[in-house]
């Protein structure tokens, strides 16, 4: 047996539990969903018949799906970019000489660990047009109060803000962990070579954070493209469907309308879009740094 074969076998042996797990809990259910997406009636629950690509064709005509797709893209791109920029800045600050940084790190993580049901209620109450803190503050400053969540042209941006608030601690945590993983020697060596402190971050930290940035960009974007709890808890998708994110549309199709076939088709359409976006992210952000 060659060294290469042996290593391939080792790799697959180590992967065996994962292959088994993902086949049972992911591949199986997803294949069933794919089968359902080709049927009309009540696939999985009652009677259904083969419908070819009818469910997929319906997506092209589904106005609500189009509207929610656009809202979802705006929401996902907006919140991912802002979250990552903020997190990078915060982690840079918190990896440096800051007093009480352990406490600050813990506190910044609060929004992620406070039950989001409560977090959403808090924001609704702060943003309440009649009794909320935010509008009271605006009035106090002599500014015009705003209908934050009750304005179809603004509600989505408010949700982006809330999602950044919730996720920034989590992204910061991962960045800090990654910065801690960068070998000290690299910095020491650079200093001996006379690098200026301000260049250390740009020339060493930032490039070595690329795998982490890629990870976060991909994972946060994928999560945001599937966001459902935020509109579910804060706006119910309104007003005027302006915060009806795609997953909410799919969820209601599946569970309110009992239409698991069409809901599956909708999710596969989403799947293709997420796949495409992730592929672009890899092309843009992936650097082979194994040999640095």
């Amino acid at each position, binding site marked *: 047996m060659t060294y290469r074969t042996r290593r391939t076998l080792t790799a697959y042996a180590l992967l065996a*539990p994962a292959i088994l797990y993902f086949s049972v809990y992911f591949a199986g259910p997803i294949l069933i969903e794919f089968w359902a997406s080709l049927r009309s009636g009540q696939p999985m629950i009652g009677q259904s018949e083969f419908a070819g690509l009818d469910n997929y064709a319906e997506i092209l005509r589904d106005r609500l799906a189009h509207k929610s797709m656009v809202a979802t893209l705006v929401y996902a791109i907006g919140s991912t970019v802002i979250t990552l920029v903020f997190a990078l800045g915060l982690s840079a600050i918190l990896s*440096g000489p800051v007093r009480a940084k*352990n406490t600050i*790190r813990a506190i910044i993580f609060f929004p992620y660990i406070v039950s989001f049901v409560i977090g959403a209620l808090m924001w609704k109450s702060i943003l309440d047009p009649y009794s909320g803190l935010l509008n009271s503050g605006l009035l106090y400053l002599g500014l015009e109060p705003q209908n934050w969540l009750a304005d179809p042209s603004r509600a989505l941006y408010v949700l982006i803000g809330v999602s950044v608030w919730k996720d920034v601690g989590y992204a910061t945590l991962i960045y800090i962990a990654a910065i801690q993983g960068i070998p000290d020697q690299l910095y020491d060596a650079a200093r001996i070579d006379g690098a200026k402190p301000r260049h250390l971050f740009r020339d060493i930290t930032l490039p070595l954070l690329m795998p982490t940035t890629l990870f976060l960009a991909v994972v946060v974007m994928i999560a945001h493209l599937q966001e459902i709890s935020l509109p579910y808890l804060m706006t119910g998708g309104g007003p005027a469907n302006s915060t009806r994110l795609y997953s909410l549309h*799919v969820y209601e199709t599946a569970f309110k309308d009992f239409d698991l076939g069409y809901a599956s088709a909708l999710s596969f359409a989403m799947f293709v879009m997420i796949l495409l976006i992730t592929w672009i992210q890899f092309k843009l952000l992936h650097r082979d740094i194994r040999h640095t």
Partner: protein
Amino acid sequence: MSTQKTDHNFLSRAMIFTILSVFVLAAVLPFLYMLSLSLQGDADLFSGKVVIIPETLHFENYLTIWEKAPFARFILNSFIIAGGITILHVIFDPIIGYVFAKMDFPGNKIMFAALLATLMIPFFIRLVPLYVLTAKMGWLDTYQGLIMPFAMSGFGIFLMRQFIMPIPDDLIDAARIDGASELRIFIDIILPQLRPALATLVLLTFVFQFNEFLWPLVAVSSETMRPITTGLTLFNQEFFTQWNLTAVGGMLLFLPCLILFVAMQRYFVSSVMMSGMK
């Protein structure tokens, strides 16, 4: 204490102070809000007025939840489920991440892409087939039925892979030439350097699973198997959420996560990095 990795000379202290203050303030708000809610009476909830500090502090809310429902059992369930899942992740995710990061074999890229693809289908779309499967296995209303669907995650494996990739190949290659097995390399060389990553994995997995709602909602069919999240909904009215009791439950969900964070915190700082390099 490790070397400072960023230097702040280029940013004024005042600016840093301002930035941190804004984020810290925004971050403590929900906690304070939850605390306030948890001490409010029903009259405060329904009054329609903004209550910041309740006139009477209703500490009895913290006792009510134990009387109204088997809350000790809910807490135990939450710990068993989230704890069990977290342990499985710590066992499986790093080694699989290592295989993807550092082993060349045919199918590596395809399988990794397939792994990422598992993240791209929303969970609720797998919910119905998963439920039917779990029912067929006879695992409804059992801990294994609540734990197994989350035993590994594409997220955790991807996280581990990204943390393992920057570890220099020279070390691994040297060990391979010495005849060390991959498992040995993983345990002796990779694992010691993964402490911050593992701490992150433990924290994120536990927090996420501790707050999981949808799967326990459908896979549990008796009151005694409910975790805290679905147990809390028992207090609600038809059209109202009983926010004060929900907030007490929120505190119970929050505190273990905070304690875990503090416990994991030291691993973010005291990583013994690259000791093998010298």
